[in-house]
């Protein structure tokens, strides 16, 4: 893997050259798709249905392969199952030879990118032309696609005009007018299609019972590619199989909404080749009978059967490659698929695909760019837990080569269960609780060292902590120390709760914990702050799953007796709440995970609930007239749907609330501290700044620690948690 400095340099270059186009395109589509989903009542039901169809199709895959083979052969076509990319290429080459073909036109297909069929055929002397306009552009530019569905998304119209002007000897140069560019490319591509001997398409879905392909397109090039030459070759991963035609209905309604933000694309072709259309022979200017048609379905395994056996990677096979997870990803919006991508696949789910069809090295280059913010999850039409796939792959990368890389020295220093060869940076951030405990023994000294030039130098050299960042400072007194001395101040409580002392609140920012205590007490609640271990978020985000699991077990042990006593658990830090509510599902036995998920609350959600149930909020702090507040909710809060409680409480108390629209602040836990990602993190942060705009006249609050830190830097002012605004002083 490349050094931190190389990575930083590569990403910096990409942001400078491709960042603007990618940012604009992904954010636009992301918004369009949000809007399309909001208007669509059946969204959640159809996602459930789509998920179920995929789960059962993958479970029955061997049978479906047999069934489709029979169906296609009965229709008069042939099926070839290719174990590897090389097999698939050989099969295609043989078809070209058998048909005496010279030229092949292709419609867009990621699966054919995966096998590099263009390179293979060209090396064998054949001409290959991409017909999707985006693919055509990158074929000319000799680039890899930067997005699952918008392969040339990283290029501006002016870029494309320059490229065409350089490549073709034109009488008059093209301007950057999209209409003109489209017309130009359309003419060229159209000619190739008319001349081609073979048309190659992918398939969005393949129906096993009938051998029907579903192709989802807007341009119409796939239709022409499939029907114009007399020979049609469709290359599809085996995971594209579904049992019956009826199974396509939910996907027909979902794929454009999540993928492009349309309700439906211009064309959804359901074709059962070889088709009955006459063959238009443009050279002879005659229509030839449909009997001349030849059809081949190449089904590609290339690691997929292995993924199917793999409990954690299996759900990657449910992916319908709509690209929504890329568009919803703040880091992808900043660097695009040439940064957030492996050999073939891009974006959050790209990691799962690369690990499955290529290898961990290919997945490794991109894997760190998933910060687990989870904003992709609600957009995935088949409900894939994309952050979990990334965490699993990260864990495997951590364990790669562990047998021959025993570093006993480092092993002794950190208490986790992770392999000796684990990157020191990951180890530092993964063990934040131990470090916090040691550091807070002598907070003044620790702060001085971490803030000093030599201290920063050491942190950057050894651990990759960017020296442009200030690490959070230890407080003189932890939240638990303060509360231990102060004690509860409610004599006749309506209820008792546990306030979860997350590491940041406890050691670095006790003020927001104190505010939570005062706000809860003002609503008649008695607060307990027992010693509870770090939630496991820190090691989890570094892919240290075993360590995270131990933490989860310890947290469960510490909280469960309180829950048994009828105490709810109130959580300030959203990333910890997300562990309790969602991620523990992967770490704890089902029953234990459910127990915690059902009894933990965001602090503002809890305040909202108390007020809603009639608690007297008179003692809460209310703003003066015309008070405005700008609020940035935490990414995971949004995914859990709890951000709205903060908004409601603030506006009920009299604030006019302005919220940010961006998916993530860019800090994302430890991500923004890492020297190789500092600039990406700031780029994402700048976008948040643009989005929130001028907040001079308003209070500015954020729920997450890292969001608070990021906004501190962006606005050069202290950014408190919302509970600090409402707590009695």
């Amino acid at each position, binding site marked *: 893997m490349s050094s931190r400095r190389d990575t930083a340099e590569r990403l910096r270059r990409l942001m400078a050259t491709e960042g603007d186009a990618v940012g604009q395109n992904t954010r636009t589509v992301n918004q369009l798709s949000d809007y399309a989903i909001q208007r669509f009542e059946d969204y959640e039901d159809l996602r459930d249905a789509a998920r179920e169809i995929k789960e059962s199709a993958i479970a029955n895959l061997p049978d479906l392969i047999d069934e489709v083979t029979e169906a296609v052969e009965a229709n008069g076509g042939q099926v070839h199952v290719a174990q590897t990319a090389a097999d698939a290429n050989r099969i295609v080459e043989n078809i070209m030879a058998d048909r005496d073909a010279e030229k092949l036109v292709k419609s867009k297909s990621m699966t054919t990118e995966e096998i590099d069929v263009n390179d293979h055929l060209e090396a064998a002397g054949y001409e290959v032309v991409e017909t999707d306009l985006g693919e055509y552009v990158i074929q000319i530019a000799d680039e890899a696609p930067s997005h699952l569905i918008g392969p040339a998304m990283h290029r501006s119209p002016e870029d494309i005009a320059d490229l065409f002007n350089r490549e073709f000897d034109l009488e008059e140069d093209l301007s950057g007018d999209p209409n003109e560019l489209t017309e130009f490319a359309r003419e060229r591509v159209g000619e190739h299609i008319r001349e081609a001997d073979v048309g190659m398409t992918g398939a969005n879905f393949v129906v096993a019972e009938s051998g029907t392909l579903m192709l989802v397109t*807007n341009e119409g090039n796939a239709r022409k590619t499939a029907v114009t030459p007399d020979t049609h070759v469709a290359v599809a991963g085996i995971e594209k199989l579904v049992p019956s035609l009826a199974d396509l209905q939910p996907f027909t309604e979902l794929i454009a909404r999540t993928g492009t933000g349309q309700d439906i694309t*211009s064309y959804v072709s*359901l074709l059962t080749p070889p088709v009955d259309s006459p063959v238009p022979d443009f050279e002879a*200017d005659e229509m030839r009978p449909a009997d001349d048609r030849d059809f081949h379905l190449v089904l590609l395994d290339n690691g997929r059967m292995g993924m199917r056996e793999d409990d954690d990677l299996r759900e990657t096979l449910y992916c319908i490659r709509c690209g929504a997870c890329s568009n919803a990803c703040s880091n992808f919006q900043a660097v695009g698929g040439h940064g957030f991508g492996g050999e073939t696949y891009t974006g959050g789910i790209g990691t799962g695909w690369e690990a499955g069809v290529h290898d961990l090295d290919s997945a490794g280059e991109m894997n760190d760019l998933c910060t687990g913010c989870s904003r992709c999850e609600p957009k995935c039409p088949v409900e894939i837990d994309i952050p979990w796939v990334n965490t699993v792959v990260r864990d495997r990368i951590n364990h790669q080569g562990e047998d021959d890389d025993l570093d006993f020295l480092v092993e002794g220093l950190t208490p986790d269960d992770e392999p000796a060869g684990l990157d020191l940076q990951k180890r530092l951030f993964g063990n934040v609780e131990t470090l916090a405990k040691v550091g807070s023994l002598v907070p003044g000294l620790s702060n001085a060292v971490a803030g000093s030039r030599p201290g920063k130098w050491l942190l950057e050299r050894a651990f990759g902590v960017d020296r442009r960042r200030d690490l959070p400072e230890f407080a003189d007194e932890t939240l638990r120390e303060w509360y231990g001395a102060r004690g509860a101040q409610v004599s006749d409580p309506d209820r008792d709760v546990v306030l979860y002392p997350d590491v940041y609140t406890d050691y670095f920012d006790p003020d927001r914990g104190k505010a939570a205590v005062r706000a809860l007490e003002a609503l008649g609640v008695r607060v307990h702050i027992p010693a509870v271990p770090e939630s496991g978020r820190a090691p989890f985000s570094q892919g240290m799953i075993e360590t995270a699991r131990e933490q989860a077990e310890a947290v469960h042990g510490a909280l469960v007796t309180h829950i048994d006593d009828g105490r709810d658990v109130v959580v300030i830090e959203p990333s910890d709440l997300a562990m309790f509510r969602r991620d523990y599902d992967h770490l704890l036995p089902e029953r234990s995970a459910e127990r915690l998920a059902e009894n933990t609350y965001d602090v503002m959600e809890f305040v909202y609930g108390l007020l809603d149930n009639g608690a007297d909020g008179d003692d809460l702090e209310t703003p003066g007239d015309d008070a405005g507040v700008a609020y940035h909710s935490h990414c995971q809060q949004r995914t859990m749907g709890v951000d709205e409680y903060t908004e409601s409480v603030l506006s009920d108390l009299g604030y006019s609330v302005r919220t940010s629209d961006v998916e993530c602040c860019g800090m994302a836990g430890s991500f923004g501290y890492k020297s190789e990602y500092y600039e990406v993190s700031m780029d994402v942060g700048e976008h948040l700044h643009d989005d929130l705009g001028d907040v001079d006249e308003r209070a500015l609050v954020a729920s997450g620690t890292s969001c608070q830190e990021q906004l501190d830097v962006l606005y050069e002012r202290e950014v408190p948690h919302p509970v600090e605004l409402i707590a009695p002083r």
Partner: protein
Amino acid sequence: MSSESLSTFESSVPGDVHRTTTADADAVLDDAVEEPAVGTALPYDDVSLPGSVDTDPSPSTLEAAATGVTPAALGIAEYGTVTIPSGAAGDELVSLYTPRHVAVVAASDVVPDMPTAYERLGEDFAAGMDTQVLATGPSATADMGTLVQGVHGPSETHVVVLEDR
């Protein structure tokens, strides 16, 4: 078909919708067709293609045509979609290669939503009409920077609805 479906269909089609009856269909089709035109035979009694429409085009005629007319098997109200079955008469080519596509659909074939459409498609497929395109508006691309309509398929789409069929 309910009249509600029909008006939903009319408002969701991204293109011109012409509601007519069998008696007036000839005139409406004449209007919607710009010559030179190609087409495939319409399966509705008492409705025929304008005389100028070539139903047996060569590839060069197809390429030069300004309009292509085909029947549609279904209209899907919620989406403004028509389904074009592609048969030996060349519907797929006619509806794809021409810059203006005119689809003719019977009002009784307009269904409210996608689940109902798939029920009908299931019947069609079982009966051998097993290649259909769900077409919604003109062909389009955003690959060159902004949305451009009319790429490899039509840039203009019309739907003629036969209200008494």
